[in-house]
């Protein structure tokens, strides 16, 4: 009896799973064109946050970032600027700290609160408690950006990669990858650069 139940469950899983397999998951997470799963993670204010909470959003900038990575720190001001600019246009930043605080104590929930306050974060800063979300997305480093567009089918991945092409100096940036992608998305145009690479801190598991 029990095995039948399990079998039934499996079939159910496969059935619900197959609806998204055409678009989702390689073993390494999402590719551009996949539908990204929603999540429910704890924000620094204690509330749980999901993408579905943002009823009027047109999309999201899901950014895996943290307190401790030097690259992430270099980009903090630029992440705030992205949120300020695009929240008003319906594409808010959702920051997620993917690191395991027991391995990286500087990225604990308490330290996240402190850093967010110091910097005046204008966006949710969520802890990937249990580290289940980042592998699903395929994030490998911080900072790592996923631009999602809200569609009838779900949140479509439109861009994956770096914020821009110069971590050291915001004033020497030639290509604002994320801004270009969001602008194109909102204008209903094709996004020219959909994937970029950058050196980053490996996620601490």
């Amino acid at each position, binding site marked *: 009896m029990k095995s039948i139940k399990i079998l039934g469950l499996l079939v159910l899983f496969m059935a619900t799973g197959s609806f998204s397999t055409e678009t989702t998951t390689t073993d390494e997470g999402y590719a551009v064109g996949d539908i990204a799963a929603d999540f429910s993670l704890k924000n620094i204010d204690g509330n749980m946050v999901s993408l579905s909470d943002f009823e009027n959003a047109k999309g999201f900038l899901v950014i895996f970032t943290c307190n401790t990575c030097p690259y992430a720190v270099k980009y903090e001001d630029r992440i705030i600027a992205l949120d300020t600019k695009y929240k008003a246009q319906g594409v808010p930043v959702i920051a997620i700290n993917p690191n395991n605080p027991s391995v*990286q104590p500087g990225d604990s929930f308490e330290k996240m609160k402190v850093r967010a306050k110091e910097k005046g974060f204008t966006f949710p800063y969520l802890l990937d408690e249990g580290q*289940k979300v980042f592998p699903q997305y395929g994030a*490998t480093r911080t900072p790592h950006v996923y631009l999602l567009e809200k569609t009838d089918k779900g949140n479509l991945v439109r861009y994956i990669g*770096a914020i821009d092409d110069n971590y050291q100096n915001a004033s020497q940036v030639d290509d604002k990858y994320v801004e270009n992608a969001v602008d194109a998305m909102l204008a209903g145009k094709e996004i020219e650069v959909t994937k970029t690479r*950058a*050196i980053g801190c490996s996620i601490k598991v």
Partner: protein
Amino acid sequence: MKYLRLSLVLFATLLIGCIGKSKETKDNESDRDVSQNLDPAEEVAVKFPVYDFDGFEPLLHKDDSYTYIVNFWATWCKPCIKELPYFEQVNEEFKDKNVKVLLVSLDMPNMWKSRLEPFVEKKGIQSEVVILDDPKQNDWIPKVAEEWGGGIPATLIYKGKKRNFYEQEFTYEELTQELQQFIN
């Protein structure tokens, strides 16, 4: 299928977590104190050669009798620091097999004097150290290896035209095992 994959990923994550945890806590000093920008004048007179990618690229394509192990690392990268002793050990042990280790630091300019130099000195690192300073990462990362996403540690092993790239952390055993196919 999705759930199976997911649980595999989770399992792998846990596994890596267990392996990774053992020695990491004591390097916590390398975590936080890097947000402030120091005076750019501090960049001068650093002990190691500093390259942009164009200057650096020939080091990835030497065609001689040596096997080169090119390791990309940074003082702020904990898994890099953890595997560094194995590269040092290999550099020493495989000298007579024409193996050379090149440690390519991706530390930021404000860390060269304050962190990189003291680190190399304190650990008594014998392998050659160079600095790669080129912010146009999206341009040069694929020129090192098409499959590299940008995570470090990352290692290229090559001899002449034969080359393998690894975006992973090495143990001593794994490193010497990979090396075997180049020196035999």
